């Protein structure tokens, strides 16, 4: 047999099977998707697999954020392949230890893990690399460089991208467009009301509209809702506020540390300025706003209590729910910037005409397969199925799922307009903002190194001391810097440095 005939025969059988499958084409729309999208992990391809008698164990976040789609696709996977799929849901405060204890004690407890991508530095030794076949799928190919980047360790793809997260500014467009409010603002400050381009402006706008009934419902509204509760992702809010002052566009080689020496940079003037503004903004927060967790922030901005906020998509999506009182009265924009940026090579503040804007690509749910799992084939099939194009497009439409744009095609405003019924203006600001973050020239990423939990809880404790007035911004961050130096020494400078090099490579690309 020659090569040609072989190929011919192969083509013939493929054609045959295609015909056969079309003939008995199943209707997969009952699973809540618009239409199956052909590919390696389509409903049809997974339906063809038989995992009867095998069990897949999955650990994921609490319901509904990520937890609900995990359970939904697990149910579907079970029906399609005959496998038994067990899912356990864990609140994010406890997720890390729940995954780490079995890892460290060599217990193959879970096959598939959904986790925060910033933990990659700790988890990477326990993750299985995504096999080449899955890296070639159309779904994987269209993941943007940013979100592929956060899953790489030394060039190896260790996480299976299934979500994209970042911080951006959210504000009440109805208030900003209201002439009365504009007049009020002008009277108070002498300048026109614009979407804040710097954090100083952000604080100023928040202060003017704080404790003021801008929506006319009889209850006072407030300036800003931020995640401020210690040990509750507050570190992300803080880094968002700092980045523009501390991440000079022309200075390479590290944001948290100087990569060369691994000296912490967190007590440098840019960081201190960011913290001072964070502390100052407390005056414009709603009652209790100085101990808001993420859930409180979501309710506060998403429920229409506050004028502005910045964090992940959740509050924005909450505001855009079909029954939300402020639906289509919100807009998104990139995080405010800074006109003065600390330059650590010259040791001076550099002034910028156009504010220095820095995108913070933070958190982001991700998924992976345990290296110790005996079911890696099935596990990767599940993840590939979870994030196949049909499922992802369906998941993106359900706000509470927490699956947010991470593929090139997700940044199309038409999708939000047509499928979710958003106003064109809202859809455009949303899609454009997300796209801008994705392609921003100046980005910072989470500290994806071993011991990230330790670094961040130390940072949060320090920031909390400044917030409560127990210490000045400089004192608090000096304390954190000392702790960070100790942590680096304890874990090992080389290990932290090697992992941090991956992060810096993304920032300095």
């Amino acid at each position, binding site marked *: 047999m020659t090569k040609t005939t072989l190929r011919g025969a192969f083509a013939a059988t493929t054609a045959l099977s295609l015909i056969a499958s079309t003939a008995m084409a199943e209707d997969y729309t009952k699973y809540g998707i618009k239409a199956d999208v052909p590919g390696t992990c389509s409903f049809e391809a997974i339906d063809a697999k038989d995992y009867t008698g095998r069990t897949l164990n999955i650990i994921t976040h609490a319901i509904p954020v990520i937890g609900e789609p995990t359970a939904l696709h697990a149910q579907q996977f079970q029906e399609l392949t005959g496998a038994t799929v067990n899912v356990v849901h864990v609140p994010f405060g406890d997720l890390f230890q729940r995954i780490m204890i079995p890892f460290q004690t060599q217990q193959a407890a879970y096959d598939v893990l959904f986790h925060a991508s910033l933990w990659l530095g700790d988890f990477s030794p326990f993750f299985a690399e995504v096999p080449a076949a899955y890296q070639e799928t159309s779904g994987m190919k269209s993941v943007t460089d940013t979100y592929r980047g956060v899953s790489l360790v030394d060039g190896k793809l260790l996480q299976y991208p299934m979500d994209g997260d970042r911080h951006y500014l959210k504000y009440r467009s109805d208030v900003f467009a209201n002439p009365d409010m504009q007049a009020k603002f002008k009277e108070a400050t002498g300048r026109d009301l614009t979407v804040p381009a710097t954090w100083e402006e952000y604080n100023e706008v928040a202060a003017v509209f704080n404790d003021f009934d801008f929506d006319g419902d009889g209850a006072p509204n407030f300036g800003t809702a931020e995640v401020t509760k*210690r*040990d509750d992702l507050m570190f992300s809010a803080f880094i968002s506020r700092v980045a523009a002052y501390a991440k000079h566009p022309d200075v390479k080689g590290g944001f948290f540390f100087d990569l060369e020496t691994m000296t912490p940079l967190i007590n440098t003037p840019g960081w201190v300025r960011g913290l001072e503004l964070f502390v100052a903004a407390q005056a414009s927060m709603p009652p*209790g706003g100085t*101990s808001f967790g993420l859930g409180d922030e979501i309710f506060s901005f998403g429920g229409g209590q506050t004028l502005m906020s910045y964090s992940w998509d959740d509050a924005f999506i909450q505001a855009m729910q079909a029954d939300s009182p402020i639906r289509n009265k919100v807009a998104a924009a990139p995080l405010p910037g800074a006109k003065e940026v600390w330059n650590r090579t010259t040791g001076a503040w550099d002034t910028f005409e156009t504010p220095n804007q820095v995108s913070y690509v933070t958190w982001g749910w991700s998924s992976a397969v345990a290296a110790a799992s005996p079911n890696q084939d099935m596990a990767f099939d599940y993840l590939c199925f979870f994030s196949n194009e049909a499922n992802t497009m369906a998941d993106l439409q359900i706000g509470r799922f927490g699956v947010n744009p991470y593929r090139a095609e997700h940044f199309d405003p038409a999708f939000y307009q047509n499928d979710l019924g958003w106003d064109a203006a809202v859809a455009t600001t949303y899609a454009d903002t997300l796209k801008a973050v994705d392609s921003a020239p100046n980005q910072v990423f989470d500290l994806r190194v071993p011991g990230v939990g*330790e670094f961040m*809880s130390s940072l949060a404790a320090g920031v*909390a001391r400044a*917030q*409560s007035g127990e210490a000045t911004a400089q004192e608090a961050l000096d304390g954190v810097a000392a702790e960070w130096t100790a942590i680096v020494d304890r*874990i090992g400078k080389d290990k932290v440095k090697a992992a941090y090099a991956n992060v810096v490579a993304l920032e300095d690309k």
Partner: protein
Amino acid sequence: MYRQKYLFLLPGLLVLVAIILFPLLFTIRVSFSSWDVYNPGLNWIGGENYGRLWEDARYWQALGRLTLLSVTTVLIQYVLGFALALMVWRDLAARRLFRVLFLIPMMTTPVVMSVLWRTIFHESLGPLNPILESLGIGAAPWLSSAGWAFAAVVIVEVWQWTPFMFLLLLAGLLSLPNEPYLAAKIDGAGPVRTFFSVTFPMLGAISVGAILIRLIEASKIMETVYVLTSGGPGTSTETSSYYIYIRGMRDFQIGYSAALSLTYLIIMIVALTVIAKLLVRALVKDAA
């Protein structure tokens, strides 16, 4: 005297020792290692963790705060529990209903109740501040100012565990014999004097036990702090076990947190022994 006495004691003792022995020895061993997120395993670093602990100001501050918190809450619980027990002891309409009602908070799951309490203390969406305002007392910054956050934790603890004191003291009251009261009446003692000369002394032994157990349990407070304040604002509500939790589970410094815990264990055992002795001397008459 009797050989059989060991048949009673040993099954329980041995089972307990069997279950607890490995974890205890393991913890002692781990406390001399640097087991952390990146280097799991039992290496030997000598007393390094204990040296670090000695200089860890946050740990000692947390211990001080815990002392204040547990002593405050247990005292309030004891006084309130005693008062409530006296009130529903006798001469009260529908007292059985109130007895059941007063027991219920103890039955609730702390981790779930803490989330519920957080919604109650929520300063703009929760029900507490509107009620205080309508009573003319005014809203309070429950979770965002140091003093109030501490008070919030105390309130939750008092709500949950006053029933514990209440139950033990009520059971004690109901089992008191009648004769001393008759005698007091003949002496012409008023209710206050009767309480201090008859009731209170007779409940001394129960009081000591109840206070000690509550002190042990109150000192482990973790979930309430975690959910309500995460130790904030600043470090104003950070207690020992929460700090150990942060070091152990969040930072995953297993070795260091083992050292913290063992130190805590020893301090507690010493403190409780002393407190027990003092309480017995103060409250139990026939102790000498």
